[in-house]
């Protein structure tokens, strides 16, 4: 088991490293392709001609005149060890590891921006994830246990609808109904849970529901098909033959086995979600990582885009890693067949 974990961990590190290289290269290639100096992606429109001494000074300041590998090392060592951002005149900015650089547009360390935005996204993702996992699995289980019944048909048709409705439809619709028409949930802005749990909850409820609606549908359908398959297995027959009660058979024996692929997908979904809540955050005006990335893309603020990309990739890789390990614990057969 230890060897299994170590191997997986090494694999995860390699993947993250590759992501850092690829991301870095993309953001070197893009300016070249659009015939713009990479300096633009740091400080915005520059009114200096390309060959002027001003441009050269800026290029030198940001290290774009260094060879590619040196630039990459500077970028990587910043993340690993931290770096000091200095221009030789102003107060040097201490950027501790992991350092994702400095956003000259926002006058802030990218790390700080992400640290402020991350809790919003994490609140959103985890809350929605819990909702959709419980909701989806419950609906799917009930459907699986009564296939063809009204419960099943309603559940599955509802799931199909939920999966087909994009979040930029369900989100505003929920807002219109609950906030504007019924006035049940007033427009509250996000506050961290440590500051005001009640307001945190109120500001998160509608985003949670919109997101959970979308994903829960997938999980309901998946649970249904897994459960139907599992309930037909021989060991279910054995469990019943032992005299176990129906709930015990369904949950301890059935769901326990059916849930394993769902756990895998859940981990990966959650990991991917952290990097892709852009639409939800825009619709509900939540200043999370998604909002940050959209703002950065609109402003073409490269350090922030780089930072968010790497973080999203790291989260996904970690999620995958955890899911791999978890699977080995859930399914005792896994470690043997490495």
């Amino acid at each position, binding site marked *: 088991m230890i060897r299994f974990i170590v191997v997986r961990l090494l694999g995860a590190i390699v993947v993250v490293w590759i992501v850092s290289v690829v991301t870095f290269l993309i953001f070197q290639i893009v300016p070249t392709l659009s015939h713009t100096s990479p300096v633009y992606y740091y400080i915005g429109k520059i009114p200096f001609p390309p060959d002027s001494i001003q441009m050269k000074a800026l290029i030198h300041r940001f290290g774009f005149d260094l060879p590619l590998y040196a630039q990459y090392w500077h970028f990587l060592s910043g993340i690993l060890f931290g770096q000091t951002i200095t221009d030789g005149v102003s107060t040097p900015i201490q950027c501790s590891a992991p350092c994702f650089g400095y956003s000259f547009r926002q006058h802030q360390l990218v790390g700080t921006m992400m640290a402020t935005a991350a809790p919003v996204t994490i609140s959103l993702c985890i809350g929605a994830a819990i909702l959709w996992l419980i909701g989806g699995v419950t609906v799917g289980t009930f459907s699986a246990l009564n296939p063809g019944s009204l419960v099943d048909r309603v559940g599955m048709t509802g799931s199909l609808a939920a999966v087909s409705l994009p979040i930029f439809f369900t989100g505003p619709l929920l807002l219109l109904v609950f906030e504007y028409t019924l006035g049940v949930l007033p427009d509250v802005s996000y506050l961290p849970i440590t500051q005001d749990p009640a307001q945190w909850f109120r500001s998160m409820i509608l985003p949670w529901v919109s997101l959970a609606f979308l994903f829960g549908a997938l999980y309901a359908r998946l649970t249904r098909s897994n459960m139907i398959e599992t309930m037909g*297995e*021989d*060991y279910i*027959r*054995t*469990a*019943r*033959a*032992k*005299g*176990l*009660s*129906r709930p015990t058979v369904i949950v301890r*024996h059935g769901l*326990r*086995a059916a849930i*394993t692929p769902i756990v895998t997908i859940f981990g990966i979904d959650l990991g991917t979600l952290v990097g892709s809540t852009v639409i939800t955050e825009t619709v509900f005006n939540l200043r999370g990582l998604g909002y940050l990335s959209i703002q950065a893309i609109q402003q073409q603020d490269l350090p922030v885009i780089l930072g968010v990309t790497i973080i999203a990739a790291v989260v996904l890789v970690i999620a995958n890693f955890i899911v791999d390990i978890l699977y080995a614990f*859930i*399914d*005792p*057969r896994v470690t*043997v067949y490495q």
Partner: protein
Amino acid sequence: MTTPLSAPTLRGGGTSRAFLEVKDLRVHFPTADGLVKSVDGLSFELERGEILGIVGESGSGKSVTSLAILGLHKGSNARVTGEIWLDGREIVGATEDEVRDLRGSEMGMIFQDPLSSLHPFYSVGAQISEAYLVHTKVSKKDAKAEAIRMLEKVGIPNAPSRYNDYPHQFSGGMRQRAMIAMALICQPQLLIADEPTTALDVTVQAQILELIKELHDELNSAVILITHDLGVVAETCDKVLVMYGGQCVEMGPVDELFYAPEMPYTWGLLRSMPRMDRDRQTRLTPIPGSPPSLINVPSGCVFNTRCPFTDRVDGDRCRTVHPNLEQGPTPGHAVRCHIPAAQRQEIWRTEISPSL
């Protein structure tokens, strides 16, 4: 009609019923293609201490019968009619909850493939403890001790450490022993073994059968051994029931069936058995044709389409009239066939027996 299961148990003398009594059991499954008549009018009796072997080809209804006895068709779309009396309690009409009480405590079952029949995610020991805890109010520790004791009893070495192992960490034979431990831990009076040795090597087969017999002796339980292997039947059973097309076609004491069988299907089974004492060059004689569709069961005698002896019967009674199960001369030996009894015995003596 139901008998409340809380009625006092009537055992042994004092009742006309056998310990296990199956009366005209029918299990039909409605499907999109039609009504599948898996079991169509099966009746037999079994006393405690007896081992009954149910023999037949795949699809003859053997497993469906055993599941019906355990009441495992309840909640599915199967239509079960007839009566099943276990120790004075009627199962077909009982509710799921009532029957569930009996499963594991009064009747246990072991299945063909122990690898797929044990839950892959729980340790073997935990599954056995679970079987115990369902019917007995004890602490988890006591249940574990009992489970270990049971594992030792079924011959698994190093039981305390093997308690924590998972099914895939056992060999085939050990797995089956563990299954037996799990089925018998509550000491049920009826054990149903559905092809317990089919998935195992021959050497292991013998060990398992030994084990079943041992435990049966100890508990004095009734055992139903379902198999398609006549050798197993010869070794182990007291009574045999031959099933074909969802019906019993011949039933009787084991000796009768091997030395005086009277139904053409049984003859066919015996002839298709490879035997050590026959000349190796002789070909095996399989029964021509294939098992009947349980949706379109042949009219008349269910075996008539494959029976080489239909010409021994006048007219086409074989094809039109459904024969009843009739008692033969020897007590307990019943046959379902239109060929007159004397003629059957004749054919056995002269045509079949010599060729075996």
